């Protein structure tokens, strides 16, 4: 009889990343039985002691898992799932989770719900809520097969703090079926804050008129310790790299503060930023859609508002 919740722990440079504690928190709050973790990689066993709030951490530590491949990680995750026999498996909606979750569902012959922002147990079954149609709608799903697999959007769940580490159980997995091979990996430059991790994002739209006018966006982001984003139109015009595009066909961000400058707020864009805790809109069109989603707004021309805002924020921060 499947029981409990198994979460995927993610480790970077030997440290457990934030999503892991968010998944443990979400799993504990479900009240669906004991919470355990799976830790997969090469040389990761030592990090098992840092996964807290779980009864047990299952570890597959294998040199063949030094680089992420779908084949290798799904073999490891399936071996753990067989050992742990959970009713629910939660993964982060991260690079790894969004790739691994459907592959694991396919391997285990069960269903997967992606990008969960809320979940609850109802009649003994997991119900997940996720944004659909570019964030315009919410879909609630329930599972009729076990284990129920769901990915969870980062920052959508409160993390556990502290707690004890669980027992560590090593699991071996057959790596002979790995067919994919990572022949090269280039890390993106570490300059500045990563868009997905930033607690402040300042985004500019086509209304800025030229790539040069992004200087103000960059400066405001710098003053606030945030990252720079842009709308699809801006990326299409080649004013900014595609990597900075926020939206349905770009990145989904959920910072504490999202400042949208000269962005009208089309569905395409809102799909990427509507999970932000506080949207601040700066636009000369008082009827722009972005104001409907914003908490604070300035109706005005960015050319005069942006320099004034940079000065004002510096001044207010200096006041301590």
């Amino acid at each position, binding site marked *: 009889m499947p029981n409990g919740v198994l979460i995927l722990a993610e480790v970077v440079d030997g440290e457990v990343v934030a999503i892991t504690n968010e998944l443990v928190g979400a799993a504990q709050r479900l009240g669906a039985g004991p919470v355990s973790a799976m830790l997969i990689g090469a040389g990761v066993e030592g990090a098992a002691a840092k996964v807290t709030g779980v009864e047990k951490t299952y570890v597959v530590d294998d040199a063949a898992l030094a680089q992420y491949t*779908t084949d290798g990680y799904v073999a490891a995750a399936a071996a753990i799932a067989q050992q742990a026999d959970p009713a629910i498996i939660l993964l982060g909606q991260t*690079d790894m989770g969004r*790739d691994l*979750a*459907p*592959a694991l*569902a*396919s*391997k285990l012959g*069960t*269903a997967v*719900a*992606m*990008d969960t922002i809320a979940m609850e147990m109802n009649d003994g079954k997991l119900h997940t809520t996720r944004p*659909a149609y*570019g964030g315009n*709608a*919410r*879909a*609630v*799903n*329930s*599972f*009729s097969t076990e284990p129920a697999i769901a990915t969870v959007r980062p920052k959508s769940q409160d993390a556990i703090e502290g707690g004890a580490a669980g027992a560590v159980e090593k699991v071996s997995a057959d790596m002979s079926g790995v*067919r*994919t*091979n*990572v*022949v*090269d*990996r*280039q890390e*993106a430059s570490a300059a500045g804050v*990563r*868009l*997905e991790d930033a607690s402040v994002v300042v985004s500019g739209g086509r209304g800025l008129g030229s790539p040069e006018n992004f200087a103000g966006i960059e400066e405001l982001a710098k003053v606030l310790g945030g990252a720079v984003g842009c709308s699809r139109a801006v990326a299409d015009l080649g004013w900014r790299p595609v*990597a900075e*595009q926020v939206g*349905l066909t770009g990145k989904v961000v959920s910072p504490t*503060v999202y400042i949208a400058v000269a962005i009208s707020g*089309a*569905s*395409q864009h809102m799909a990427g930023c509507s999970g932000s805790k506080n*949207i601040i809109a700066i636009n000369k069109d008082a009827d722009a*859609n972005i104001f*409907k*989603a*914003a*908490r*604070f*707004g*300035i109706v005005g021309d960015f050319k*005069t*508002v942006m320099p*004034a*805002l940079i*000065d*004002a*924020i510096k001044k*207010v921060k200096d006041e301590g």
Partner: protein
Amino acid sequence: MKQVPDWDIPPASFKVDEATKKVVPPPGVAAVASQFDEIAVEAAMRIKDADNSVKVTVISLGAPTAREVIKKGLAMGADEGVLISDDSLNNLDSSAVATVLSSAIKKLGDVDLVLTGRQAVDWDQGTTGTLIAGMIDAPVVTFAKAVAVNDGKVTVERVLPDATEKVEAPLPAVVTVSNELGEPRYPKLQQIMAAGKKPLQTWAAADLGLDAPALAPKLTLESLFVPVVDTKVEIMEGDTPEEQAMALARRLKEAKLI
């Protein structure tokens, strides 16, 4: 390729019928091909550009109107189309969709490479390509920004938020394509005319040997609704941009946001 309601509508015109759990398309808004699927066709055409002996087939599962998105793929240069459509194939969950598509791929036979969009722009799940890979027992590489085929293997540049990877996999393989691959090509009028003469078959569930138990849902849509946005924007007043900016800076500080 999947046919979806045009996704770039103003959010205010977006409506859901909660009883049927379906989106109500606003009047006059056309159904279009899902954005990433057109980019997957573009990836296929770049492979064909390099080797004209490659045959490209466009598959769509959907209503009879999905014929139009297949024609778009044919106009871009694909060789043939297959529409999978019948009433028993409406409202399938993602696992059943992948079952239908993988059955069609098996029926086509001799498929070396399956290209899909990284996600559909209606449900945004991003699972179809990977589920198909599991069902046809092929390796999968997701989020491609470049795809090349050589010597029985596919080489994919994967785009990730913090890195770019080059991944190789033996054929047959499944690759999901991201927007970083670039804009889909725009068919010329002559190509659009020619597309009408290319073969386009229609298959039903029975043609694929699929019955109701094979397509039983594993995931049930309990409800679909438009979230209530209770945000009321606070517009910063002031006679000058400096006053407006200072008002905002002070409010951000009060709210402990800076």
